[in-house]
């Protein structure tokens, strides 16, 4: 068994391309295992040319992506704070995965459809889903509650991997509608072991469905390292199913954007599914209930901190002269304002009426549900009388 706390530091393969300095080594996996990894932005904020992904980013676009990353991180931090203060029962932090989510989220067109796990707060942001919508389930006032069709962003799915099949089915529906939109199925390294994920690969391949499988390999499935899930790099799984797989630096928002765009384009032009492994890192705990110090060392966390997705884009913007201190300060202020709004909206979420649990058990009348609702209503009304008597 490999000792996961002593990963071999990676050498830079970019040196071979003569692209940049040796200091900003790409993440392990880039050439630590001799494998291709698409990177368009070094950890020092330098643009890297890639023959297959000639991404043109305007200064405005780069600033906009920076804003997305900062705001998404700020909302996430607020989520963690709200949980710590007892306002949320749980929060699943995306800390460290902002670029993987914003890059892929911004690659989508309005008609495309995202099937998230429960951690895709950054994708939700890109789909214009109000952040407070995401808090309901974590606060315990609902189990989701939003309409997936409104922003083409499905409800969060907690059972690991289930949504990948829904994504394929949705893509099969798009095929039947003659649509040129496409679907992204989000999942993680842990989910790659699930039967449903593997079945979704089979179905997508069999029907040539317009779907992009987007695996954020954040290295840890709660306490289990990716090595527990797979003997081969995850993106290589795709070849066994008959479609391309590619690994992208998940902390590089440009690379995630370019690679996802290409995969979506491939899907919408009838060339079928593909798998993207966004190689990233979960900087925080699995959820607020988790204690990662029990299973991973701080050296590893520090290694990844140096690859921070926001910091590298900030360096790029400075290097390019595309943003100044005033811009960064303005974004920070906007982030704080947004966090305050999210907090206020969270605290204002009303507890549901107890009888509302019966409301949507079925779409059509069901006599068992109706009878039980009546019984509970009468029971609760009894307490109401007692209150009134006092």
């Amino acid at each position, binding site marked *: 068994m490999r000792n996961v706390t002593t990963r071999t530091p990676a050498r830079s393969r970019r040196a071979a391309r003569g692209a940049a300095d040796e200091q900003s080594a790409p993440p392990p996996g880039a050439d630590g295992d001799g494998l291709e990894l698409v990177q368009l932005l070094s950890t020092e904020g330098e643009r890297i040319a890639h023959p297959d992904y000639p991404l043109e980013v305007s200064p405005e676009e780069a600033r906009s992506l920076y804003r997305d990353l900062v705001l998404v991180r700020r909302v996430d931090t607020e989520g963690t704070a709200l949980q710590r203060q007892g306002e949320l029962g749980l929060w699943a932090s995306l800390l460290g995965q902002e670029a993987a989510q914003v890059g892929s989220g911004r690659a989508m067109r309005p008609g495309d459809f995202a099937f998230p796990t429960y951690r895709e707060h950054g994708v939700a942001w890109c789909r214009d889903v109000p952040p407070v919508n995401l808090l309901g389930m974590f606060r315990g006032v*609902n*189990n*989701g*509650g*939003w*309409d*997936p*069709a409104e922003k083409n962003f*499905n*409800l969060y*799915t907690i*059972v690991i991997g*289930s949504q*990948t*099949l*829904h*994504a*394929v*089915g*949705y*893509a*099969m*529906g*798009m*095929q*039947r*509608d003659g649509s040129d939109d496409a679907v992204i199925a989000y999942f993680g390294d842990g989910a790659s072991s699930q*039967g*449903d994920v593997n*079945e*979704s690969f*089979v*179905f997508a391949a*069999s029907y040539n469905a317009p779907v992009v499988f987007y695996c954020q390999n954040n290295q840890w499935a709660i306490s289990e390292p990716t090595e527990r899930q797979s003997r081969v790099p995850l993106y290589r799984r795709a070849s066994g199913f008959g479609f391309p797989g590619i690994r992208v630096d998940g902390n590089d928002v440009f690379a995630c954007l370019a690679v996802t765009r290409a995969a979506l384009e491939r899907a919408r032009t009838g060339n079928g599914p593909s798998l993207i492994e966004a190689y990233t890192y979960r900087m925080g705990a699995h959820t607020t209930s988790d204690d990662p110090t029990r299973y991973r060392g701080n050296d590893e966390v520090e290694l990844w901190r140096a690859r921070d997705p926001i910091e590298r884009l900030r360096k790029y913007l400075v290097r390019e002269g595309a943003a100044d201190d005033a811009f960064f300060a303005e974004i920070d202020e906007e982030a704080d304002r947004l966090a305050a709004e999210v907090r206020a909206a969270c605290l204002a979420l009303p507890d549901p009426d107890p009888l509302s649990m019966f*409301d*949507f*058990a*079925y*779409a*059509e*009348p*069901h*006599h*068992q*549900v109706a009878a039980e609702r009546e019984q509970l209503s009468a029971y609760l009304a009894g307490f109401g009388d007692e209150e009134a008597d006092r």
Partner: protein
Amino acid sequence: MSPKTASGTVTLAKALNMGLRRAMERDPKVVLIGEDIGKLGGVFRVTDGLQKDFGDARVIDSPLAESGIIGAAVGLALRGYRPVCEIQFDGFVFPAYDQITTQVAKLHARSLGKVRMPMVIRIPFGGGIGAVEHHSESPESLFAHTAGLRVVACSNPVDGYWMIQQAIESDDPVVFFEPKRRYWDKAELDETPAADRRPLDRAAVVRPGTDLTLAALGPMVRTCLDAARAAQEEGRSLEVIDLRTVSPLDVDTVAASVERTGRLVVVHEAPVFFGLGAELAAQITDRCFYRLEAPVGRVGGFHTPYPPSRIEEVYLPDLDRVLDGVDRAFDH
């Protein structure tokens, strides 16, 4: 295609096929997905000819993966389709149990009513055909225990024809059990639509009687009708109810019957333990306590794995076991 066979009668398998065809003709969003349902027409031929007539975009031969069938159908439903899934045999539904219970059943509630899952999951169920393991089970209670699912079972060609169409029209997911040993039973089928068609959530009194009520599900309805005829010769008048629906359970119809007869025996192939009979016994005891002349009886399978086929006739309730249950109710 003629609505009736030359003899004027159709088998249950044919009636289901005709019902599926009508639903597909009526609504282009109805799609079928399952294993071997295309060219082969399903292992029981329930989808015979449908792929030829509606194309492979609407009659979809799936990879051999039950969770995949149901999970993909969830996505199709989210896109506005009305998928009808075929699970080849009862014992093969369990790879899909997760998708059915955690996703299909809950998406309407999870979305606070914004998502609907108009999906039908067809499952040939029950024993009596001499099959190998996993081909003879009756898992209806396992689905009835999950809110969000409707669970029904047809027992005859006429119900098969209408109930499958009603299930497809329902905006709720319906687990639709088909009694596989009755696929070849025949009946006269009149396809004329009737405004007073019995709703999908109601049981039917299929033989009136005065002395005892037999409430049966799916393949046991015919067995109970046979038992009632035999009892008639012994001077006992048994009322037979075809339960048709397990969730919701039509307790009203059963209670009304018990108010007339004073005795109830519930008959199903599924194990008695924690089964449909247990739920009915509890609810009827609650509602008809002072009218009951005897405890509610239950006749069904045992708390064993479904036995090898050479002894399945001992496991399955037959006419004698039903009459034994009837005797016990009268002897009380």
